[in-house]
């Protein structure tokens, strides 16, 4: 790996980083400098999301990767306004949802949904699956603004079951009677009940065994193709992310350090952290050579290092990194990185 020369860096305003390939179309989701700070006891603050800007085009699948605690879930929840952001804007189809009241947000909720990691915890154990799936249909009027009838709801439930390849009889059962994969299908079905345009999936396959994981990943892919969905797909498994996403954002300690098309980011990472991340994934191939792993641990998000947030673990750290925080900037069309000394293609 060689390094890009210092001069190649063109510091760029935040928004331009997200202006990926098709600049003409309006993004479905536009995230502008979103921050989320948790206030811990003893006056400590935890910047779980620390100034993230990105945008997601309709039909795009954005993979969000990073180590545990780097703020992936927090960002995901902010995108759907499940947590209030501390600052910044989130535009869904041009409308800022950060300031909307719960009531005003409700119609928008039909447009954006979430699938969670823990397939069991995200299903109410005391309600039948049918009931759970019908809930969104009951509370939201149909597109004509009318209350959905019982029959429409039943029909829709059958449709959903079909969509995720579960038998209709599953509607009569409770969550605990299903295997992890089946439960995740149910979760997906529920998220799809209202025909959303955006689905945020927070590590939907991490808890599953590989063989089942493949089924679900396929299901996600199929659904996207069939329904023209847009995903924000959070995962820590790079292989899964690569399988499903069109572009990838790599997060470290609350910030996006690299953002670009999937293959660009995973095969020619420009950020040392992305490089270490891809290198560290064990491959099911015997004898594959592997670079020495990254040393050290992620610093506590409460005490984020000054300067570049990665400098404590960076093998190429320079003095500048310790004091100056690099901004996310475009290094080639559709590929931006937050590093003073991005890696050149190896």
């Amino acid at each position: 790996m060689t390094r890009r020369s210092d001069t190649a860096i063109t510091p760029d305003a935040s928004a331009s980083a997200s202006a990926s390939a098709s600049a003409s179309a309006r993004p479905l989701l536009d995230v502008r400098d979103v921050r989320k700070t948790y206030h811990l006891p003893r006056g400590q603050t935890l910047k779980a999301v620390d100034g993230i800007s990105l945008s997601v085009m309709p039909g795009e699948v954005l993979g969000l990767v990073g180590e545990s605690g780097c703020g992936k879930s927090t960002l995901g929840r902010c995108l759907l306004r499940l947590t209030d952001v501390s600052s910044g804007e989130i535009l869904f189809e041009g409308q800022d949802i950060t300031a909307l009241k719960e009531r005003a947000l409700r119609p928008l909720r039909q447009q954006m949904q979430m699938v969670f990691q823990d397939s069991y915890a995200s299903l109410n154990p005391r309600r039948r699956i049918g009931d759970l799936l019908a809930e969104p249909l009951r509370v939201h009027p149909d597109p004509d603004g009318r209350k959905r009838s019982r029959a429409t709801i039943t029909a829709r439930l059958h449709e959903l079951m079909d969509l995720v390849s579960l038998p209709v009889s599953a509607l009569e059962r409770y969550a605990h009677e299903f295997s992890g994969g089946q439960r995740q299908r149910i979760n997906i079905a529920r998220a799809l009940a209202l025909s959303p345009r955006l689905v945020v999936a927070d590590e939907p396959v991490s808890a599953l065994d590989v063989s089942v994981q493949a089924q679900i990943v396929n299901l996600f892919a199929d659904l996207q193709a069939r329904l023209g969905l847009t995903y924000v797909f959070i995962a820590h498994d790079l292989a899964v992310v690569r399988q499903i996403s069109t572009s990838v954002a790599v997060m470290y300690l609350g910030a996006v350090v690299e953002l670009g098309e999937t293959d660009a980011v995973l095969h020619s990472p420009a950020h040392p952290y992305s490089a270490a991340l891809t290198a560290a994934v064990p491959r099911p191939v015997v004898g594959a050579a592997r670079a020495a792993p990254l040393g050290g641990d992620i610093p506590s998000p409460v005490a984020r290092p000054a300067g570049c947030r990665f400098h404590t673990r960076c093998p190429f750290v320079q003095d500048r990194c310790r004091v100056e925080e690099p901004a996310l900037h475009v290094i080639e069309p559709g590929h931006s990185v937050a590093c003073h000394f991005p890696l050149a293609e190896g």
Partner: protein
Amino acid sequence: MLPAPLLEVRDLCVSFPSRGRMIPIVEHVSFTLGERDILGLVGESGSGKSVTAMALMGLIDSPGVQITGSALFRGQELVGLAQKQLLRLRGSEIAMIFQDPMTAFTPVYTIGWQIDEQIRAHERLSRKQARARTVELLADMGVPDPARTADRYPHQLSGGLRQRAMIAMALSCNPSLLIADEPTTALDVTVQAQILDLIRSLRSTYGSSVLLITHDMGVVAETCDTTLVLYSGRVAETGPTDALFAHPGHPYTAALLASIPPLDGPRPHRLPAIAGAPPAPLERPAGCAFAPRCSYAHETCRDAPPPLVPLVPAGQAGQAGQAGQNTGAQSAANIQQQSAQFAACVLPAEGTLLLPRLLEADTAMSSPGGIILGLSDQGIQPMLSSAGEPPL
């Protein structure tokens, strides 16, 4: 003459009572672990990996549990060993580390205290000497500032450090066998890589053998010398890691490997997935446990669990049929000596071998005879080939 194996497990069965019935969780598991060997135990969640390990440690104390078979550790039978002798073995000869370093330490004592405790439980050492050893061990594990770290409480350490401390504790009495139950699952990839490096280095620095339990085929491929694939409490396949990964002999192993999305090379359009889910122990079919999900399944698979048969690399197909007569219980020495690959499947005996895995491949998709074609992720029942010839 090869040295006697460190651990030789034969026909290990573990059943738990439930509502008046015995549920077989682990059935007839056999394997051998040599000195300084790393054996990978892989399988899906619930396949009985932990139970196997716990049975070896004598740590299963649910009332009414039945453990049969044999596990010879340096010639000493572990199954049914008296509590007193077990106590002496545990921690000193056989040590164990667990998946979640977060909860595996007693929260109210310092790390150092807990390591000291283990040392002093097995060796007559003063507090001071024990602490010195502890600090040394921690330093060996790559813990920065080990003396200070020893005085810290578990919650004050990061996951990676905690797992290192855990390993340090396990190694504190120089055990000859280290059982690591998913030691990296709770860790991040970058930290996981560090820990795996550490485990790999143990055999040279400490001379320990490792029984590594994981569900990640990647980890196995990188770390283990030998691999044992469990499916629903039964051995599906076992063999040297390189051989097993190169040409899996059991359809399950093959499918499992295929369903892992590749990180390099072209992206498959769809992932080859195995339909359905592993059976619950009580619903385990009489025949091959994988049969309901297997596209090669046919009548022979349904009657009885297929025996573990040696698998011969592609060039030595002739020997396959002959070895097929052996049951798993027999000729342990043979197996060891041949260091061959075995699969609990009727296919080798029938002379039908799976195609070798295409590494870095243009994906299995394009390979005409790949088993993957037959697998579907839709519907509960996979399409079953008609009796007789599998679609090869």
